[in-house]
C-alpha cells in the first residue's frame, strides 16, 4: 500500500513538474522601425513580454499601436530591427519552419475554389502528410469547430461566422504550438462574436493551446484572456500587462460579475492613459 502511495506521490510530483509553465515566447527589448519616405515610423519600441505555455494572451490597443505588428513579428511575417525574440527557445523563423504557428486572420481567407474540407487540407498538403493522416485531421478539427457535415460545401455557401470557424479549423489542423489570431471576429456582428468567443474558450480548454489574440474590444479581451497586454501608440509600446484571476472555465454571464468589471475597468484606464496626450 505504502509503495503504491509513494509511487502515486512521485507521479504527482512528476505531473506538477511537467505542468509547471514552459516559456513559449520570450521577447526582450524588441523594436521595429519601418523606413518610409516620410522618415522612420516606430511601429514597436522596447517591448518586453513573456508568454507561458497554455496562456491565452490578448493584445489590446487603439489602431496603430502595433498590436498586429507584434503578432506578425511573432509569426515571422515581420523582422524586428532591434532586441530579441525567441519562440520555443528558437528564432521565429525556425519556429515557422517547424510549423509552430496556426495563424487566423481577420478575414477567413479561404480559397474559393476549394471545398471547406479541402481548405482545411491545404496546410496538410503543404506539410506533405499522408492522405489518411490528412483525412483524420480534417475530420477531427472540423468536429472541434462544429462544422461536421459541411466538408463538401464551398466557402461562399457558408455564413461569415462559419467561414471564420473553418479558418480556425485550418489553423488547428497544423497542430501548432501557438494559435495566433488577428482580430478573427472583428468583421462579425456582436451576437455571432459572443457565440464564437464562447466556442473559442471551449476549444482552448480542449486543445490546451497557447493563444495570442489581437482585438480592440475590451469585453472580448477580458472574457477570453488569462493575460491582457495593453498597448499604446507612437511608438507602439506596452503600457500595462494584466494577469486575469478569473476562473478558466467561463460563461458569457461572467461579464456582469464585479471581478470581470474590475479587470475591464483597468484595461479601459490603461487605454485612456496611453492615449491621454492625444485629443
Amino acid at each position: 500500500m505504502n509503495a503504491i502511495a509513494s509511487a502515486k506521490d512521485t507521479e504527482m510530483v512528476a505531473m506538477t513538474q511537467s505542468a509547471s509553465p514552459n516559456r513559449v515566447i520570450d521577447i526582450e527589448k524588441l523594436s521595429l522601425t519601418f523606413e518610409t519616405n516620410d522618415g522612420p515610423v516606430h511601429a514597436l519600441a522596447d517591448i518586453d513580454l513573456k508568454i507561458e505555455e497554455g496562456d491565452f494572451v490578448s493584445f489590446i490597443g487603439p489602431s496603430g499601436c502595433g498590436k498586429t505588428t507584434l503578432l506578425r513579428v511573432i509569426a515571422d511575417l515581420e523582422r524586428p530591427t532591434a532586441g530579441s525574440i525567441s519562440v520555443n527557445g528558437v528564432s521565429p523563423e525556425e519556429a515557422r519552419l517547424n510549423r509552430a504557428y496556426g495563424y487566423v486572420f481577420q478575414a477567413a481567407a479561404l480559397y474559393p475554389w476549394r471545398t471547406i474540407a479541402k481548405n482545411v487540407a491545404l496546410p496538410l498538403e503543404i506539410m506533405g502528410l499522408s492522405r489518411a493522416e490528412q483525412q483524420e485531421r480534417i475530420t477531427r478539427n472540423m468536429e472541434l469547430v462544429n462544422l461536421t457535415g459541411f466538408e463538401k460545401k464551398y466557402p461562399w455557401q457558408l455564413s461569415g461566422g462559419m467561414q471564420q470557424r473553418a479558418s480556425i479549423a485550418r489553423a488547428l489542423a497544423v497542430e501548432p504550438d501557438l494559435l495566433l489570431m488577428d482580430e478573427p471576429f472583428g468583421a462579425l456582428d456582436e451576437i455571432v462574436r459572443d457565440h464564437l468567443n464562447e466556442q473559442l474558450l471551449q476549444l482552448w480548454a480542449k486543445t490546451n493551446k497557447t493563444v495570442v489574440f489581437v482585438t480592440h474590444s475590451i469585453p472580448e479581451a477580458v472574457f477570453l484572456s488569462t493575460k491582457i497586454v495593453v498597448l499604446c501608440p507612437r511608438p507602439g509600446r506596452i503600457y500595462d500587462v494584466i494577469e486575469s484571476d478569473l476562473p478558466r472555465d467561463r460563461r458569457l454571464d461572467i461579464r456582469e460579475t464585479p471581478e470581470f468589471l474590475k479587470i475591464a475597468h483597468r484595461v479601459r484606464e490603461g487605454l485612456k492613459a496611453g492615449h491621454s496626450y492625444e485629443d
Partner: protein
Amino acid sequence: MTDATLNPSRSLNPFSGLMSGTVGPVTVVVLAIISIWYIAAVALNTPFQRDLYERGGLTDVTLTQMMTDTLSQDRPVLPAPHQVIVEIWDTTVNKSITSKRSLVYHTGITLSSTLLGFLIGTTLGILLAIGIVHSRVLDKSMMPWIISSQTIPILAIAPMIIVVLNAVGISGLLPKALISTYLSFFPVAVGMVKGLRSPEVIHMDLMHTYSATRLQAFWKLRLPYAVPFLFTSMKIGMAASLVGAIVGELPTGAVAGLGARLLAGSYYGQTVQIWSALLMAAFLAGALVALIGVLEKLTLKRMGMAQ
C-alpha cells in the same frame, strides 16, 4: 404584388415583349446589319451599273431592274449579302474538301497554323509570366521588350519572319504559326502576370506561415488564382492568332489558306470571293473564341469558382 403593378406599365411599350429576351435584340441587330449592307451595296454599285447602261445605250431602265442588276454584278464594289452566302455555300457544300476551290480546305489550312501558333504563343506567354512574376530581374529586363514587340506593325515584320526562317530552312506551317505566336503570346503573358500577382497579401502571408515553398505557393495559390485571367487572355490571344495566320499568308504569295484566298481575290477583283473569305474568317474567330468560353465555363465549374 409587384408583378401586378409592373405588368400594366410594361404592356404600354409595344417593343417590351420583343426586347425582353435575348432572341429579340439579337434578331433586330442582325436585321439592321443586313439592311445597312443592302443599302450600301446598292449605293456603291450603282455608278458602275449606270456606266454599263450608258455604254450599252440603255436609257429607260426601271428602278427595280436597276436594283436587281446592282445586286447581281460579277465583280461588285460591295457584294450583296446573298451573293456572299451563295458563294460560301458553293465553295463549302458543293465542293469536295480536297479541292483547291473549297473554302473548307482553305479554312482548314489557316486553322491549323492558327492553332499551332496559338498553342506555342500561349505556352510562351505562360512561361514568360511565370518568370516575370518570380524574378525581379526578368520583370525589369523582359517587360519593356514584350511591350515594344507589339508596337511593330505585324504587316511589316511578317515578311521578315518568313524570309529569315526560309533562309535557315524552315518553311511550311511553322513560319506562319510563328507569326500567330508573335501576336498571341502578348495578351497571355500580360494577363498571366496580372493573374499570378492577383492573390491577396493575406493569402501569401498564409502560405508563409505554412512555410510553403515557392513551388507550392505557385501550384496551390498563384496558378488557381490566375485561371480566370488565363481564359480571358486566351480569348484575345486566339483572335490575334487568327489575324496573324491570315497576315502570314499574305506576303508569301501562299497558295492556300484564307489569306491566300483574300490575295487571289484582290488580284482578280473577285470581291465576292474576298468577302466570303472574310466572313469565313469572322465565323472561325467567333467559333474559336466561343470554344474557349465553353472550356472556361467547364473549368471554372469544375474548380468550384463558378457560383
